[in-house]
Structures are given as structure tokens and as C-alpha cells.
């Protein structure tokens, strides 16, 4: 359509107005799309990583922290539990439990967490081997695909672990290197970011140090953050948490198990889905605030399109009347102005989407460094198509009053000098 080209020329003729409108519009669209994408990808990540776990058991503390630590590997442990306390739940003949996977956590390699567990753990994530074998002997590890690709690790390589989840040169277990025996195929879950080994490896790493000096030993336990541990317990073997799948999710006895554990034992049990929903609703407040801000910006940008069209129309009265003189009917003038609004909306939309994905591209690295979560910055979601519809609606609404004015242009009045 020739009119669209003229609309475009008219917009280009007032570059400052155009830039301001585009800037505001793309900012609004960009923020909203960023919200949509982050919300969706983070929610999906969290839900994927639930891995069908119905209950998580660990040391008393914050249940949310326990879930973030035990299932998502982004927080420190609440503490450790003695293997003796955990034993009943690990019994394969437990009437309510289908699968119970013990985890020993606390150490890491370059920010990637080392998990001491058994071979049930990879089955939770349907993980299969890309090469090599699963770990068998202490100090053998099978590593996730992200770990392997980021540090170009291959089978036969060795490394030493360090305390906690951060890289700490002064706090490394140099005496006890791990050796890689296998690499896991990418699963898209948290499993990609883990280093799997047997619990015995973890015990071995931590038990070597100065058996004569109990004080040093006690700083060298699996727990680095909280809870001083009774040194009598150190003789005992410890694990961090147990991940449990029920035989039946609707069994009342199974549902009561959580309350029983919390009331009658030294352990803490939590339902991951509930804790994660709690986390989402807390994050949701932040998301809501940004969402409101984004819509306010979108509204203001609509207003700026309206004002700039309205102002330019005042200057263009004669021009529009002239177009009528040259044979344009009122409908064409209406369309001319509507197109201007829509062009700003479409360009603003494209810029905004580009902006949000570029921001994701940059923050993907930061998110990965902080949480070891890979988000895909160039994955487009259906909500963005909905956003296009919203953008077009804003452009249309902003243009409609100026367009009606253009439609009503009276030639005689405006050509009367």
C-alpha cells in the first residue's frame, strides 16, 4: 500500500518524535516480554526439576532452603542427618515409599555441586550415559553434560573439590582428587550441572583430615553454614537429605508421614511442590511489581504516540487538507494516521522483543554463573505473539483520535490562510 509508505515518510520526517515514541514503546514491550519469558523459563525449570519427588527429608531448618538445596542445588544444606536416623526411610521394603534416594551434599568443583548418592539418582531425571560408565568405586565420578562442556572435561581427568558452592582456592581437598569415569547425556534438568559420585567418596574426602584433632575435623564436616554438630555424631556416618517418591500419592498414611516426621523426629520433611509454590508466590510479588511498571510504561508510550500524532496533526492540518484537494477521501486520511500509529507499534514491538532477548542473552551467563541454570535466550514463546496483538491495539487506540480528526479535515477552513 502506497499510503503506508507515506505514513512511514511522515514518521521519518519527525525523527525526534519517532525516536521518543519508539524508545518508550520498545521499553514497555521489552520489559513485559522479559517478564513473560523469565517467569515461564524459571517456572518450567523449577517444575521440571521436581522430578516426581513427593517428599524431601533433611535436617531441621528452613524447609524452603532444604528444597532449594536438595532438589535444585542452589542453596546451602540446612545441616546433616545421621545415616542411622535416615535408615528407616531407605529400607526398600518400606510400605509407603517407592523410591528413596540419599544425597550427601556440600562440596563442589568450580561451582558445580558434587552429589554423593546411589544409582537411583540418575533415574529420577531419566539420565543416560553419553560415554564411560557410572561411578562404582569411591573417588570415581560421573559428570553432567554442562560440567563436561564448560571445563572441557573428559574421561580420565581428575580434579579436587572445594567446600560449599563457591570456588575457594584456600579450601580445597587437594589430598583427595576425583577421577572422571563417565559423562551423562544432556537432560535439560539440574542433573546436567551435577557431579555424581558415591556417598563413600564424600565421607572419604572429609574423614582424612587430622583424626587426632577434633576441632579441625569438626570444621571439615559436610556442613559449612549452620548448626554446630555434636562431635559425638561425627563417628556416625552422615548424609544431607533423602529424596522420596511415594508408592501412591493419594495414600493418607503417606500424606501423614510428613507431619509425623516433623513432630516426632529430629528430622524435617517438606513437600517440594508446596515449597516451590511458596517461593513462586513470594517472587510473584516482585514479578507483579515489574509487570505493573511495564504496563505503566506501555500506557505512557501509547500516550506519547498519541501526543506526537496529535501535535504533528496540528502542524499538518494544511497538508491533510491539501491531500483532500488532490483527491484523497476522508477514509484515506483516517488510514494514513492509523498506519502511523501501527507502524510505531510494530517497530516498537520488534525493538522491544529484540531488547528483551538481548538482555536475556547477557543475563543468561550471569544466571548460569549464579544458579548453574541454562536459560535459552532465543526461545520465543506464544505470549510474545499475544504481546504483538497488544502492541497493535495500543498503536491503534493511540492513533484513533488523531485519525478521526484527520478524517474530519475540512478543506475550506484549512485552506483559508
Amino acid at each position: 500500500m502506497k499510503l503506508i509508505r507515506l505514513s512511514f515518510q511522515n514518521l521519518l520526517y519527525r525523527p525526534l518524535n519517532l525516536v521518543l515514541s519508539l524508545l518508550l514503546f520498545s521499553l514497555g514491550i521489552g520489559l513485559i516480554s522479559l517478564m513473560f519469558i523469565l517467569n515461564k523459563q524459571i517456572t518450567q525449570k523449577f517444575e521440571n526439576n521436581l522430578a516426581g519427588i513427593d517428599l524431601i527429608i533433611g535436617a531441621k531448618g528452613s524447609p524452603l532452603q532444604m528444597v532449594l538445596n536438595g532438589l535444585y542445588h542452589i542453596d546451602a544444606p540446612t545441616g546433616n542427618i545421621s545415616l542411622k536416623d535416615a535408615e528407616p526411610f531407605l529400607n526398600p521394603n518400606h510400605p509407603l515409599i517407592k523410591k528413596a534416594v540419599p544425597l550427601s551434599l556440600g562440596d563442589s568443583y568450580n561451582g558445580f555441586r558434587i552429589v554423593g548418592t546411589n544409582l537411583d539418582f540418575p533415574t529420577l531425571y531419566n539420565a543416560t550415559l553419553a560415554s564411560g560408565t557410572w561411578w562404582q568405586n569411591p573417588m570415581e565420578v560421573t559428570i553432567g553434560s554442562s560440567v563436561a562442556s564448560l571445563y572441557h572435561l573428559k574421561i580420565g581427568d581428575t580434579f579436587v573439590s572445594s567446600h560449599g558452592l563457591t570456588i575457594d582456592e584456600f579450601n580445597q581437598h587437594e589430598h583427595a582428587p576425583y577421577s572422571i569415569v563417565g559423562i551423562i547425556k544432556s537432560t535439560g534438568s539440574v542433573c546436567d550441572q551435577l557431579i555424581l559420585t558415591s556417598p563413600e567418596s564424600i565421607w572419604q574426602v572429609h574423614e582424612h583430615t587430622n583424626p587426632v584433632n577434633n576441632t579441625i575435623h569438626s570444621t571439615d564436616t559436610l556442613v559449612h553454614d549452620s548448626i554446630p554438630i555434636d562431635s559425638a555424631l561425627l563417628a556416625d556416618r552422615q548424609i544431607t537429605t533423602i529424596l522420596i517418591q511415594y508408592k501412591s500419592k493419594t495414600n493418607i498414611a503417606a500424606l501423614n508421614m510428613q507431619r509425623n516426621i516433623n513432630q516426632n523426629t529430629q528430622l524435617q520433611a517438606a513437600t517440594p511442590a508446596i515449597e516451590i509454590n511458596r517461593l513462586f508466590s513470594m517472587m510473584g510479588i516482585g514479578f507483579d511489581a515489574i509487570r505493573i511498571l511495564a504496563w505503566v510504561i506501555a500506557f505512557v508510550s501509547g500516550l506519547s504516540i498519541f501526543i506526537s500524532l496529535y501535535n504533528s496533526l496540528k502542524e499538518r492540518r494544511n497538508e491533510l487538507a491539501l491531500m483532500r484537494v488532490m483527491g484523497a477521501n476522508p477514509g484515506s486520511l483516517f488510514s494514513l494516521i492509523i498506519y502511523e500509529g501501527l507502524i510505531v507499534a510494530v517497530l516498537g514491538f520488534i525493538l522491544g522483543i529484540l531488547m528483551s532477548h538481548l538482555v536475556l542473552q547477557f543475563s543468561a551467563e550471569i544466571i548460569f554463573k549464579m544458579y548453574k541454570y541454562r536459560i535459552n535466550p532465543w526461545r520465543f514463546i506464544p505470549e510474545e505473539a499475544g504481546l504483538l496483538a497488544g502492541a497493535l491495539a495500543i498503536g491503534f487506540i493511540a492513533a484513533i483520535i488523531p485519525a478521526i480528526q484527520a478524517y474530519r479535515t475540512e478543506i475550506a477552513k484549512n485552506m483559508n490562510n
Partner: protein
Amino acid sequence: MLTSENVSFKYSGRDLIDFPDLKLDNNAHCLILGKSGIGKTTLLHILAGLLKPTSGSVLIDDQNIYNFTSAGLDFFRGQHIGLIFQKPYFIQSINVSKNLAWAQQLSGKKPEYKRIDELLNRLQIQKHKNHLPSRLSAGEQQRASIARALVNKPSIILADEPTSSLDDENALAVVNLLREQAEQDGASLIIVTHDARIKEQFQHQIKLGE
């Protein structure tokens, strides 16, 4: 050919203005004179199909232009009537040549760049072809608006005070140019003015308000 009969117009709250009948053959020229506020521009707008008269009829090329629908009249005006205003108006965002092309497109024709170049040459503004209208001087702008009025080969050209903002020399030049160009394209020319400087140039004169 243009004929107007019994045309009158009434602005709300003011007296009815009766206009004299007009009859103008092809290639004929005519000057409509009168004091400010007497209704010269009103008459011109009525003749151009921009303002529906309270009564009376306007025939251009044997068509009663106020029998058209509004869009039909816009279309007819684009094709048959060339209008020149006191101030030159343009679509500011596109160059001179495109302005002329749009004058053709809006009246339902295809742009004929040969015709456009020829006109710009005739009016000696060929060098401004690709310039935005705002870059032209006042005289050049007036000439560009004459070119635009002529581009569709209208049968009638209506000019509203085309000389009022020009100095003596340019005023005469523009009037001569208008007449010359109208004659070249075989169009009738009506100039509405209160400019005494150009009275001698036209034999056929109609005085309003007398």
C-alpha cells in the same frame, strides 16, 4: 468549461451572499476581484467543490459537481480541478517530484514521471526535483505548487490570491506563468485576488460586491 448559476452561500449567523453567475469557456481566463471579506475565497471554494453552496449549481465539463457523493467529488476535483493557494502547501515529508506523483495517485492515476519532469522543467525547478519542499525558496515553492496544480491536466485552474505574498516583480511573473502554463495545457484559469498590480493583465474581470 465552467458554469455557475444562482450560487449563494450563507455562513451561520451572517447574511446570505449572492454570487454573480459565471460562464467560462475552455482556455478562457478570468479575474475575480473584490475587497477583503466580500466572499472571494468562498466563491473559489464553491467553484472548486470544496464548499457546498446554500443554493445554486456549479457545472464543470457539463457535470454538476454537487451531485457527486463526497468521495466522488474528491476524486473529480483531483482529476479536473487544479488549485493554487496563497501560500504554497506541500506534503512536507516527501520531495517535490513525489508531491506531484501523489497528486496523480490521489486522483486515481498512475504517477507519470515523464509528465512530472516536463512540468518541473517548464517551471524551471527541475534541480529541486529530489529536494524536500521546505528547501525551496518562496518563489520556487509557488512555482512547484503551480506544477502540482497542472500535473493532472485539469480543465480548470483556480488560484486564490497567488500573488499576495510576492513582490511586484514576482507577482507579475507568477501571473504570466500561470496564464502561460494554463494555455499550454488548454485549461481555463480563474484567479481570485484583491491585488491591484495584476488587474491590467486580464480583460475578463468580475467584481464582487458591486
